[in-house]
């Protein structure tokens, strides 16, 4: 009883807060451009977010266990490169190529995870290394050339259901499943415990290493999934996903997930991704120049976390903030 009285408003304020911020952005762009409020805009956004969303889901999990994954952009590029080479250079059947692509993502994630747990190293630096390695491997695999694969992957981008593209539906599905796992399963609890206090988690009988390894592996696998979508749309370009790690992290943090671990929500991450994408599309639609875009993006990132601070403070009304 107590529970229901306290918990539900918390969720609501979370999502309402994010939705409010999003609404504000939409309003601003709606007023400052001519055709922002159109089916086309939303169709475009729906089409552009799946890969980022899927990677952001993995990143949310990684941040919750108090890690960070800087390699996502490179790993996505590498998976896409393998897909591209398999299809365009060797003409391997699509299903096999897809499996290879996913496998590459999974293996990269596993490798980062293994190094992190084997020597209890900070994931920041390990994935920074992996970022370089995967990028190097991408150049090797593609021989620094863009491989054209759209014609082989049309079924990915062109399948639609109720007007929504398959990638978008897949991304939404992944968000929901990941949120369910996070909040309703033993594994989800273990992630939160590991991210909150690793020592206590270990002493509570949680297989800390296995949890971390699994989370990094999932993050890698999701990069593979994102690579399918990304490659289908933008071809296997060895420079895909450069700088994407920071964009993904920004989205996740704007969604209110803590960089310190232990606190986060996948659904909020989805809002974070939407905010970033609406911002990008809206700015482009106003015809803003690069300097303006950069300035505004930076300000919105900071404003979003400042807002999050007030939201969190509202929620724990009265609890000594200084403590």
């Amino acid at each position, binding site marked *: 009883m*107590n529970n229901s009285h306290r918990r539900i408003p918390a969720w609501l304020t979370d999502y309402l807060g994010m939705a409010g911020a999003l609404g504000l952005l939409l309003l601003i762009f709606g007023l400052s451009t001519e055709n922002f409020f159109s089916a086309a805009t939303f169709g475009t956004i729906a089409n552009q977010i799946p890969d980022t969303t899927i990677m952001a889901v993995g990143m949310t999990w990684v941040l919750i266990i108090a890690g960070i994954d800087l390699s996502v952009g490179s790993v996505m590029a590498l998976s896409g490169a393998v897909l591209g080479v398999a299809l365009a250079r060797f003409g391997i059947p699509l299903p096999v190529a897809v499996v290879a692509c996913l496998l590459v993502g999974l293996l990269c994630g596993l490798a980062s995870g293994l190094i992190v747990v084997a020597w209890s190293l900070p994931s920041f630096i390990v994935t920074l290394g992996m970022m370089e390695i995967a990028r190097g491997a991408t150049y090797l695999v593609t021989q620094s050339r863009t491989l054209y694969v759209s014609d082989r992957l049309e079924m990915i981008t062109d399948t639609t259901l109720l007007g929504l593209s398959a990638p978008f539906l897949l991304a939404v599905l992944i968000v929901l499943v990941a949120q369910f796992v996070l909040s309703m399963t033993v594994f989800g609890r273990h992630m*939160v415990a590991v991210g909150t206090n690793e020592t206590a988690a270990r*002493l509570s009988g*949680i297989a800390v290493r296995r949890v971390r390894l699994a989370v990094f592996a999932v993050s890698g696998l999701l990069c593979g999934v994102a690579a399918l979508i990304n490659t289908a749309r933008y071809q296997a370009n060895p420079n895909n996903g450069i700088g994407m790690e920071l964009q993904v992290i920004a989205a996740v943090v704007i969604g209110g997930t803590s960089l310190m671990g232990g606190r986060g929500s996948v659904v909020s991450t989805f809002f974070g991704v939407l905010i970033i994408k609406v911002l990008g599309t809206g700015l482009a639609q106003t015809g803003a120049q690069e300097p303006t875009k950069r300035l505004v993006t930076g300000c919105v990132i900071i404003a979003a976390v400042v807002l999050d601070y007030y939201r969190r403070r509202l929620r724990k009304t009265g609890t000594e903030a200084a*403590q």
Partner: protein
Amino acid sequence: MIGSAGAILSVRRICKTFGPVRVLHDVDFDLNAGAVHALVGENGAGKTTLARIIAGTHRDDGGGMTLNGQSYRPAGRTDAQRRGVRMVMQELNLFPTLTVAENIFLEDLPRRFGVINYRLLHRRAEELMAAIGLRDLAVDEPVGNLTVGSRQMVEIAAGLSQDCRLLILDEPTASLTDRETCLLFDQIRRLRARGVAMLYISHRMQEIKQIADTVTVLRDGRIISTHAIDTLTVEEIVNRMVGREISHAPAARTAAKGRVALRVENLCAGPRVQNISFDLHKGEVLGLAGLIGAGRTETVRAIFGADRLTSGRIYLGETAKHVRIRSPRDAIAHGIALIPEDRKEQGLFLPLGVDRNIAVPNLSRLSCAGIISPAAERTLARRHIDTGAIKCAAPDQPAETLSGGNQQKVVIAKWLARDCDVLIFDEPTRGIDVGAKFEIYAMMADLAARGKALIVVSSDLRELMAICDRIAVLSDGCLAATFSRNAFSEQTINAAAFSRHTATFRTQGAAG
């Protein structure tokens, strides 16, 4: 000006609320110079909160204070210190990468143009450590390398490092053994003689009888009474704290020894645990005694798989085949639980709710195919909050906002919920109030009666002697002696604990 017996601090009608919860109600209170004033009360009574308000780390919501007759409302800890009020915190607040000396004098490092005078710093630290009897601690050792007990001494040393007129000690002895406690008391007496007023918070009644001049009882945020220490017996104090009569005599242990539950053979772990062997029977409570750093914690951590064994074997039950415990996970799977000594670092998930904390080791039971049943989780939490008398506003109150003692109860509850066969308690009553202590003793007796096997590590010898069937004494990482119930006394145990420099003697199996 005030005389030696005048009130140095007067607290009037102080109130404090945390959100919807009222923690202090109109507290009135006087502290005299040159006197040790004990503050006692159950866990969550509001002692720490009151102390923090005086020391400037919390702001009151109403009421006022005067210090030396002048109005006093510190804006922060630094402000309070400027006015001569200092506090030794209940929780450890040290910096592991800084050295002992740096930690002690962090607030006032001897300097010139901001550059630290290390020569002077080390000399001062050495003097201070010598004064509180810690000559053997290198002052340039990083604090991270010290045991919990030594850290607490460093924390106290830091509190004593500066002159002050009012010193608050919040459970300073919670993880100290008798030897350090004595040294601390010498120091307190010295300060008292110099006219320093002291507020002494503790759950150890013997200590209070020993050192305090006056005692104030706090119950549910209200002052119950203030008395000269000689006018009350321990029982009377405890009754006032709890608000009812409690039977504090632990149930006499009937050492109904069952079959062997756990056998440890030649256990070596790290440099500090050497060749420990003992049997633990079903229905038995085995105490582990020893001085700070004797290796008690390391021994039980090794059994629990938290530290790696260098050699030795662990048998479960009376089988001839030893079990391999490589991690706490293995240990738990074999029915062993460890309640760790440092609740904040090792026991709790501070930002998570009480319910989530209790659920963590029990998730397999609360879930089906990996999916958690929120109803089962709630029920479990409710039950343990009730049976453990955990004082919280709601089951999902974050553990970090509980009082120290209640945090400890949460850690115990989370393991009781797991229903293991061998339970290891490392300093289980650290920071727990007298009433709750007896509840915990009763619970241990009950567990033993149900055939569980218990190991209890404690720095409080009287506690061990009250609840244990046998006491094993560690000295410098070796098992110095084992005493059965009819054979132990403070002298024999202390002698064994100090025996590390004399020839090691063993009385394995002396228990009847």
